């Protein structure tokens, strides 16, 4: 029972982080029908910026945190406007290849700028001890609660932006139908850039949260972005709710596989879940069923 509780809390923490990542991918996929495989490398890059400020230059944690988010926003906008804009209309395989190229190049750039070593990244709250309820010890640390809370707050802000603001309405219109939105006076190009920028910001948040209390290396987001992708696909790639549920399912599965089976099979477990879901429902769990165009 003790082990089950601990595995569940760990699974939820990671599930929320995967969900955050899945949300970035969904945000971009809804608007441009592109999977941004570079998302993880972007987040790793901004996390390294935060590291540079917080550890090397002795700035407070929150300065690094804020800089990482702003940098993620700008980097996302830059990538959409300069690179991705040119392949948005082409065959879908071209866009996949371009984002993969960005992924490889960015990760190598990090290696050149900051070196290949593992570097300790600080956490703003205690990341080592859990708490006790009666006799049962629960392995959820203050840092874990901070991670979950941050993602939830960011998610709330994002939903509020989409639901209640004018910009949010335009963002939704641009994602729903580009031609119609354009006719109604929405600057669709700007909305796409904004969408990528928001995804970049959200990804940076996830990166800093994942890094906190652990170690970073140029490839430290590789597994996260893949699990984020798996979570997004589980959720159907175009549903926010689906991404969150997908993230939680994946996080819990991994935690149980690591605890009850073997830590080395965690990645295979993710693949197995993905294949089972896709074979049963090729569009993901929460996909709105759309007939393939003939």
């Amino acid at each position: 029972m003790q082990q089950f509780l601990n595995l569940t809390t760990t699974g939820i923490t990671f599930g929320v982080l995967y969900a955050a990542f899945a949300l970035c991918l969904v945000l971009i996929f809804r608007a441009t029908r592109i999977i941004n495989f570079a998302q993880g490398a972007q987040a790793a890059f901004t996390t390294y910026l935060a590291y540079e400020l917080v550890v090397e230059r002795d700035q407070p944690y929150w300065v690094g945190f804020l800089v990482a988010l702003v940098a993620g926003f700008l980097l996302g906008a830059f990538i959409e406007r300069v690179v991705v804009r040119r392949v948005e209309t082409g065959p879908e395989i071209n866009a996949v290849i371009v984002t993969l190229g960005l992924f490889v190049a960015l990760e190598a750039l990090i290696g050149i700028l900051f070196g290949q070593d593992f570097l300790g990244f600080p956490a703003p709250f205690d990341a080592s001890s859990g708490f006790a309820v009666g006799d049962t010890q629960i392995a959820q640390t203050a840092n874990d609660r901070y991670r979950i809370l941050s993602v939830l707050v960011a998610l709330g802000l994002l939903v509020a932006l989409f639901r209640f603001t004018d910009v949010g309405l335009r963002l939704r219109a641009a994602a729903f139908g580009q031609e119609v939105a354009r006719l109604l006076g929405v600057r669709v190009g700007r909305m796409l850039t904004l969408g990528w920028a928001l995804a970049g910001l959200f990804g940076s948040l996830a990166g800093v949260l994942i890094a906190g209390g652990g170690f970073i290396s140029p490839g430290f987001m590789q597994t996260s972005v893949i699990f984020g992708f798996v979570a997004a696909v589980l959720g159907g790639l175009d549903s926010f709710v689906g991404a969150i549920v997908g993230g939680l399912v994946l996080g819990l599965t991994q935690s149980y596989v690591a605890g009850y089976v073997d830590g080395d099979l965690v990645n295979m477990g993710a693949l197995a879940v993905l294949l089972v879901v896709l074979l049963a429902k090729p569009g993901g769990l929460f996909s709105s069923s759309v007939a393939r165009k003939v």
Partner: protein
Amino acid sequence: MTDTSEKASTKVTPAGGGSGGGALAALTRSRGLRHLALVLAAYVGIVLLLQLFGDFRDTQLATMAYFVPAAAGLTLLTGVNGQISLGHGALMAVGAYTTAAILDRADLTPFILVVLASVAAAAVVGLLVGVAAARLHGPYLAGATLALAVGLPGIAIYFGDLFGGEQGLRVRPPDPPAWFEDLAGGDLGRTYPALLGWALALSVLWFLSNLVTSRYGRQWRAVRDDEVAASLCGIDLGRARVLAFVVSAACAGVGGALLAVTSRLVAPTSVTLVLSLYLLTAIVLGGLGSLLGAVLGSAILAFLPTVLTNRALDSGLDSAAAANLAPMVFGLVLVVVMLAAPRGIVGTTRIALLSRKLKKQRAAALASRT
């Protein structure tokens, strides 16, 4: 789009060999024989190159030999059949681990039996993945194969007794057979791995070049271009896709077996996600769907990194930074090629040649009119 070199030669040979003898006429008639002649000529070229170059080039040529079958298999899948795979590094790993595990335990000779076992293992995994992949498309397929690339090394660690865990397996390269020693003497003996690798790589190329121009190749292209039209023509979409995946995986298995013999070590770190992405870079750079493009891309993969790393070390970068220079250049090249010339080297050159020919014809037509 696909059989670039083949088509070009069909047009050229009749003009050149029209008045030739019987053997030449047979060559121009049969595509398979023509490909065989090309492949044999290429092999002679490789043997000569190996004679001329030093030890270091041997290794690079051997490296290229293991990239070629894997890249050719991937270009068949992604370029000809339109299914993207980011997991071909993992399929190479299946072949490499099979070879390493067999050579670790038994002295199975001749080596070709080991290769066949690796091919069979990779084909079986390819069949499993292909059945799942046939139902997916675009980004879904990319993600599923990506998960395969990340997940498979974990299996090698889990079954540590069989596959050596984190340390991996050392591979003792196969000894040259007695007749080879007699024939080649001591000096050529050192080039045996490269020669063996190229013999296999070129056999794969010959097989694939015939396959893509056959009924199966046409079916694969039809499925890629228009699913509905293809199924109306009586093509079983699922079967065509799974078959393409299996053939492609088998080629990756050959590449993996050669990888094991060339690098003499198979470990989880030698078959990372980056390997899969490099293979993709090679075929995109060379030209998607073109076997010649896959060969050119493999050459760039095998030769460019050492050049870049050495340049970087000479100009005073530290070794970690220098090692990262090659992946950064590859990543940027992938982006730039996709933006500027999505047809890759072979496709772009072919279009340039065709448009020049067209211009000449127009000029000639104008001249004859006046």
